Every structure is written in structure tokens, then in C-alpha cells.
């Protein structure tokens, strides 16, 4: 519900801005429309895939291959899944959310999202073409290394946060009891 309100607010801001700068209206509407079309073609399909995924793929499968104890295998799988598509990143968010719900570990999700964002085979070919071999290889290797590190770091930080919460909760209960 709140989102719809924000939508109205943003639309009002748009109308105000465009009234102040009417010459931008053409470009703005064209871009928004183009983006809308792109989205309308891809979003329903993605939602269907997620729906199928949620119902048909058993949790145990995800937990085994991408969960806490999946180790290096999980990281590779996360990378692999992330490099497959070339779509925009925001499509990956619901997929990542579904994976987390099924039991994938956070570090693998971070790896998955990051790989989706800036690594994919066709993309690397374009990068090779425009920026050269050295640039492409350097960025690829460095990104893989640092993204994996970041994945583990974020997972650690979230775990610490949650352990602190649990400890606080336990302390509170102890003081009430005694």
C-alpha cells in the first residue's frame, strides 16, 4: 500500500519538474516508455519462473548445494548461476530472495548478485571489444576475488548482528526471571 503512495508522490514530482522544464518531456517520456516496454516483456516471465521455482524445487536441494555447508561448490554454483543471464540486476532481487528463503547462504547470494551484475560471457566479449584484453581480464579476476571476499564479509556481519540480538534477548529474559 505504502508503495502506491510513494508512486503517486513520485509522479507528482515528475509532473512538477516537467512543467518547469517542458522541453525535457519528450526525452523523459520516451525513456520511461521504452523502459516500461522492456519491463513488461521480461517481468511476467521472471515471476512465472520464480513461482515454478518456489513450488517445484525442494528446499533440501538448495540447502545442499548453496546452503551453509556447501563450501566451495556453493560459491562456484552461485557464480555460475549469476553469469548465465544478461538481464538487469533488479530482476535478480526476487530470485535471490527466493534462494535465501530456500536456505542458500548469504555469501553465495552476494556472489550470485554481483556476478549477475557485472559478469557474463556475452558481456565480457563486448568488454574485450571496447576496452581490450588486459582490461577485461584484470577486471574479471579482481572482481571475482573481491566479490567472494565481500560475500563472506557480509555474511559474517549479518551473523554477528543476529547473535548480538539473540544475546540481548537472552540477557533480558534472565534479568526478568531473577
Amino acid at each position, binding site marked *: 500500500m505504502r508503495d502506491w503512495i510513494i508512486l503517486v508522490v513520485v509522479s507528482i514530482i515528475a509532473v512538477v519538474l516537467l512543467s518547469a522544464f517542458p522541453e525535457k518531456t519528450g526525452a523523459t517520456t520516451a525513456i520511461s516508455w521504452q523502459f516500461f516496454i522492456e519491463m513488461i516483456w521480461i517481468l511476467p516471465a521472471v515471476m512465472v519462473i520464480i513461482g515454478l521455482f518456489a513450488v517445484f524445487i525442494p528446499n533440501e536441494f538448495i540447502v545442499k548445494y548453496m546452503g551453509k555447508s556447501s563450501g566451495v561448490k556453493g560459491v562456484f554454483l552461485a557464480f555460475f548461476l549469476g553469469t548465465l543471464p544478461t538481464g538487469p*540486476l533488479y530482476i535478480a532481487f526476487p530470485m535471490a530472495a527466493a534462494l535465501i528463503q530456500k536456505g542458500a547462504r548469504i555469501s553465495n547470494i552476494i556472489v550470485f548478485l554481483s556476478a549477475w551484475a557485472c559478469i557474463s560471457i556475452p558481456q565480457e566479449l563486448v568488454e574485450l571489444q571496447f576496452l581490450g584484453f588486459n582490461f577485461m581480464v584484470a577486471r574479471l579476476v579482481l572482481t571475482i576475488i573481491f566479490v567472494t571476499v565481500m560475500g563472506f564479509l557480509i555474511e559474517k556481519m549479518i551473523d554477528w548482528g543476529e547473535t548480538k540480538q539473540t544475546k540481548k534477548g537472552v540477557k533480558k529474559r534472565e534479568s526478568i526471571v531473577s
Partner: protein
Amino acid sequence: MDITTIIINVIAASGLILAFIKNRKKTIQSLKIAGKSFLKILPMMLIIIVAVGLLLGFIPPNQIATFVGEQSGISGVLLIGAIGAILFIPALISFPLAASLLESGASVAAAAAFITTLTMIGIITLPLEIKELGKKIALLRNGLSLVIAIIIALIMGAIL
């Protein structure tokens, strides 16, 4: 319609057909989940559409390329990183854009920072990310992505 869209639709359609053959009831359940998720996401998507139109309509990407090309040094890298974080451009386009940055005189580090921040961080899509993955993951991921984007950029600047 580009190839990604076609592939995703083919996957969705074939998945749906296979699922229907295998288990009708579960398939209908999947569709219900799909529909609900779609409605949940819809307002946020519309917001992003309006925001992107405004952003790119008022600040066309080629203007950005010229502006960014003139920045240099570490502050240049940071500035470009910030711009990349805010912008919302398909990753595929980011490479030719980065190439034109290099031509306009930007450093290798700047171009690398631009690509990484452009693709991995999204200020405009942040609300959606928070909604799907939770505040902690979303903020940590975007924040740390910025940090590693700069680290990667500086390393590349040093070795290339």
C-alpha cells in the same frame, strides 16, 4: 526485444508447459505465487520507471561521458564511482560508455570504477532491493560494492 528477454520467456514458457504436464495442481499454485509477486512488485517498478525517465531525460548519458572524462586523480575515481552508483544504464551499454570515457581522457581506474559501480550499485533500485532482501543485505551489498569498486579500480590503475 533483445535476446535475454526472448530466452527468459522461452524458459518460462517451457518450464510452465513441463510443470503443467507433470503436476497440474502445483503448476496452478506456482502461477498464483507468480501473480502475487508481480502485484507486490508492480508499484516499485512503476516508481523506478518514472525515476529513470526523469534521471536520464534530464541528464543524457553522453553529457555525462564528457563531464566525467575531464576528472582526474583519486577524487576523479571517487566522483565517477558516485555517478556510476546513481546512474541506471544497462550493463551492456556501460562498456562502450566506459570506452568513450577513456577517449575523453579519463584514467583506466576511473573507467573501471565506473563499470563496477554502474553495474553493481543502484541507488534507484535500492528501495526494491531493500524490499526483497531486507535492509541489512541491501545496504551492506551496495556499500561494500562501492568500496571494492574503488579498490579494484585503483589496483587496475596501478597495474595497467
